[in-house]
């Protein structure tokens, strides 16, 4: 077992850099703050105990995003998730237009959430999203298109999204 004197500073550095990134992706997939926090916790425990050596911070971030997506998808497939009733009445956003937008995002089918978030929020290219989510580029393109259609997401002029 690794010593806490090593683990805690390592955790603090990583959490400070990527904690919110991991949590946001988990929220997009799972929609409940408590579940997103659980996954965030699990992701960072994996980082500390099971992560490979990283070439740089970007490599580490992509690994974290991939693990987050996998854990979320596992949860969504899980028996418990399909049977559980709403535990969290606390919505992350107050009533208003942003809350409506968030609900539209959370209502997206699971397959579109990861590609949409990684491409349009995290700014990864189609090829990078494909690598992180272990999908083919054509599948990412398809999911971006369908997800965008469902969200009625409008591209800004000059947006350089690769589809």
């Amino acid at each position: 077992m690794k010593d806490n004197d090593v683990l805690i500073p390592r955790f603090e550095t990583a959490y400070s850099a990527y904690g919110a990134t991991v949590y946001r992706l988990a929220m997009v997939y799972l929609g409940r703050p408590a579940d997103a926090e659980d996954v965030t916790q699990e992701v960072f425990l994996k980082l500390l105990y099971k992560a490979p050596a990283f070439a740089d911070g970007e490599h580490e971030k992509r690994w974290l995003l991939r693990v987050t997506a996998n854990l979320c998808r596992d949860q969504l497939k899980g028996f418990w998730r399909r049977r559980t009733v709403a535990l969290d009445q606390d919505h992350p956003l107050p009533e208003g237009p942003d809350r409506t937008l968030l609900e539209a995002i959370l209502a997206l089918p699971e397959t579109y959430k990861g590609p949409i978030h990684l491409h349009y929020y995290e700014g990864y290219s189609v090829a990078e999203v494909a690598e992180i989510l272990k999908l083919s580029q054509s599948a990412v393109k398809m999911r971006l298109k369908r997800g965008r259609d469902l969200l009625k997401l409008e591209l800004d002029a000059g947006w350089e999204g690769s589809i």
Partner: protein
Amino acid sequence: MNIQDYRNVMDQLKPAPSLEARIKEQLGQSSRRSHPRRLAGKIAVAVLAAACTFMAAMAVSPQLRAAVLTFFQLEETEQVPPPASAPVSSDPSVTQDLIAQQVEAQYIRLPGLSGYDYGNGVLFQAQRDDYGAILDFRYWAAEGDTLVPLETHTTDFTTTWDGITYTDTVYWCVYDGAISCYCNGRAGMAADADCVISSLPGSTDSVILRLSQGSQMDYRQYPVLLDLTTGEVTDLLGGTGWEKAAPVREVQWADDLSAAILSNDRMGWFYCDRTAKTTTHLDELTGLEVFSAYFANNTLILLTQSGPEGDCYDIWTWQPDSGVLTQTFSQLHIYRERDDNPYGFQFLFGSALGLYITPEGKLSVLDLCTGQETPVEGFSLTQWDSTFLPNPSGSKILFADYDYAADSLGIARLGVIDLTRGTFTVLDREGYDALDEGNLSWFDEDRVAIRSSQKDDYTECYLYLYQF
């Protein structure tokens, strides 16, 4: 919504300030495999519920310890074939090997990442255009060192449920007396509507379509039967009173479709008798407070009941025809990984089997229908990080151990418990980390499948099959 709107909303999502401290607290705990606060509880209960992680009170039935499973560690180590150094062909290809004179391996190379997958003992590929439309669909059987092309049939269907029209094309083939089938799974552009197709044991002309709507808490589904010859869709639950169980979250079928178990988050478990055209709550039928229910076979249902503290479970079988109720295990202690010295029972979902591990790591297979416990002699688990998966009929159990330093799954040991032969055979592997291993499951009744892709550029994927 535009992209800036999306970003504005996302910027507002931040974890609770206390989360960082909670994770640090986890770091301070002794177990390397500590689990998050709620996740641990969920997993523990879920294991039990769904799949039923029951941990057996081992004192239950010592008289049933008749058979044993003999452990064999193969002396030869598999040298996992590395990625191809250069493109050879645009078509899939297969090579064969016999490892330790005992494990038949088929190494299938799949050029490109163009939609290869497998199911029901066949390999298939959906070739799509950039927008996801299927251009071509191909099936193969993996026989020896040959991939045998199979004839792909198509069936178009349209059906409506709860205001949504589902229209799609099913691609299917028949191999070895069973159907393999595939469809896109979408209902046009309806946001929360899906259609999942699954084959029926013994049928070569019909499949089940699981129509669903909503997501997460609003999720609900409804099953229909699709005749692949005519494209005709038949209602399966109409007239049975299934509405008592609505909104239905999951449907399990007897193989002959004569009955179904319907589950509902709020109300629990219902038994739907299609012949008698009745749907009745299982609590009412059995007198138990049913925690979860599964078909063991066409005539027997497996029931679990939670103990008062939630740390142990009773297991029962119930025969719908006669109403006979039999308890096969009582007070099964649930295996909880977060415990300091974990022991107990885990259910093997999809079968009527369970595993029991003692505090010393000794492993047994439990038959939940008969109450029989079969210990594995000569084998122990140092920690429960391994995977155990039953094959479709429940006659074999796949075992895998992982190398956590690997980038991907890192399957360092692969094995099969063969309940018919009474053996547990394990093969060590080397060279697995040259590939990005992403998936492990049964390919068919007898062959284990590991799917992987090339690292770095992901330009090629691989399907390695093993028969022990």
